[in-house]
């Protein structure tokens, strides 16, 4: 199993953000992590990447325990946080070389070329990150996440805020990556999942409400669109 999560719970103060969720993802799968805003998607991802600890439960990546072998796990995971944080005053190559170095890559130059190739950053590679369009910034974020050739990619809303063309481009990049890596990506857009994923984990109010292949989810109510299924499974939450 690439990612194994057992009874994971997270409390922020009194508020229960994650309520004992469990799932496992075999290697090579592209999984869409779906749910309304505030459902616990980002929290789960922050726990798996080791940014924050879980309140209870445990998780492992490629058989390595998240807490006990934290540094080992981090070598295997590439992470694109929500809102794609970047140092705007750095040059692309400068930033990616730093990302490679801090990820423990030996041959940083080679890793840089590979990441630029994969994310098709070539034409813009001599620019400062602050000068880039949102779509290209997103590619830099992706390049940062995969610069150390991780086995597992965790992408938190990788296409949010992009225009339709950019969305398609980023989706293609992720789809290509999915052929050799395990990808867990979060979104609240159904088409996203249809375009990229073979499996859906639907989460609502910190609980998993559906965990199925795309086909399986469609078959639960064949007459409805995926949008409607999503709404039915999560609608009892007050909309934001």
């Amino acid at each position, binding site marked *: 199993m690439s990612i194994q999560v057992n009874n994971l719970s997270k409390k922020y103060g009194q508020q229960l953000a994650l309520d004992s969720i469990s799932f496992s993802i075999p290697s090579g799968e592209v999984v869409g992590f779906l749910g309304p805003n505030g459902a616990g998607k980002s929290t789960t991802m922050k726990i798996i*990447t080791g*940014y924050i*600890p879980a309140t209870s439960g445990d998780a492992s990546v490629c058989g390595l325990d998240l807490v006990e072998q934290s540094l080992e796990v*981090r070598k295997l995971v590439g992470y694109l946080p929500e809102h794609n944080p970047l140092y705007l*005053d*750095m040059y692309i190559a400068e930033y990616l070389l*730093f*990302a490679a170095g801090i*990820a*423990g890559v030996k041959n940083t130059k080679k890793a840089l070329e590979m990441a630029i190739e994969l994310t098709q950053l070539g034409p813009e590679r001599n620019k400062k990150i602050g000068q880039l369009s949102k779509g290209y910034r997103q590619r830099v974020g992706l390049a940062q996440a995969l610069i150390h050739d991780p086995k597992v990619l965790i992408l938190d809303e990788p296409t949010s805020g992009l225009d339709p063309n950019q969305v398609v481009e980023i989706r293609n990049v992720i789809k290509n990556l999915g052929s050799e890596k395990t990808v867990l990506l979060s979104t609240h857009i159904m088409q996203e999942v249809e375009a990229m994923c073979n499996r859906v984990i639907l989460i609502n109010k910190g609980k998993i409400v559906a965990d199925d292949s795309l086909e399986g989810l469609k078959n639960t109510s064949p007459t409805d669109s995926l949008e409607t299924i999503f709404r039915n499974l999560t609608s009892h939450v007050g909309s934001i």
Partner: protein
Amino acid sequence: MWEVFKKEIRSFLGSFIAYIVMGVFLAITGLFMWIIKGNNVLDLGVASLQVMFNIAPYILIFLVSAITMRSLSEERRLGTIEILTTRPVSDLSILLGKYLAAVALIVFTLLPTLFYYYTIQQLADPLQGTDVGATMGSYFGLILLAASYASIGLFASSLTDNQIVSLIISMVLCFFWYGVLSLLGDIKALDAIGKSLEWFSLDFHYQSISRGVLDTRDVIYFFGFIATFLGATKMAFESRKW
């Protein structure tokens, strides 16, 4: 650790902070040493850098705080802290990388003042020369003092995602540990309590090292001070895990 260190140094050089800090430090110390009437070297006629070593702690309160104000607060504001802390490096090595980069920049800022020392050596009475021991001691003390300021600055910057708030907290804390505590020793009414509080001030140990007599107690004090503030920084930095 060195990856973070290199990145910090690059960002100092790229954002002109480094040049501003060095320029301001040299300009102010230069003014006080050679130009402003009254206490300057030529008026006093004493071949020593004492004027600089008296004024430098106050200039450094501002400059060191300016160097460190963004180091952690900016990572928090941008959200890059989430990338940094999920890479295979420990939190401690991130902090040490940032801390050592700040200290390196300060040492680099002090280097050009060796030229002042050379000048004074040339001006000095050839029979008496300059007090090499006291000068070396003062430089050593000044570096330890600035390194202590840097640990305060890093701590302040771990508390907030606002650089200005970080700058002000850092300056206040530096001034407290340098200036306020040592003044307490001068208050007659406080008597022995004031004297023992004075022992905790950075100034007390800075002055002591400046005399050119290396007392291990002073060195231990400075290293303990730095370690304490770095420890506090680590706690604040890991507050997300609470």
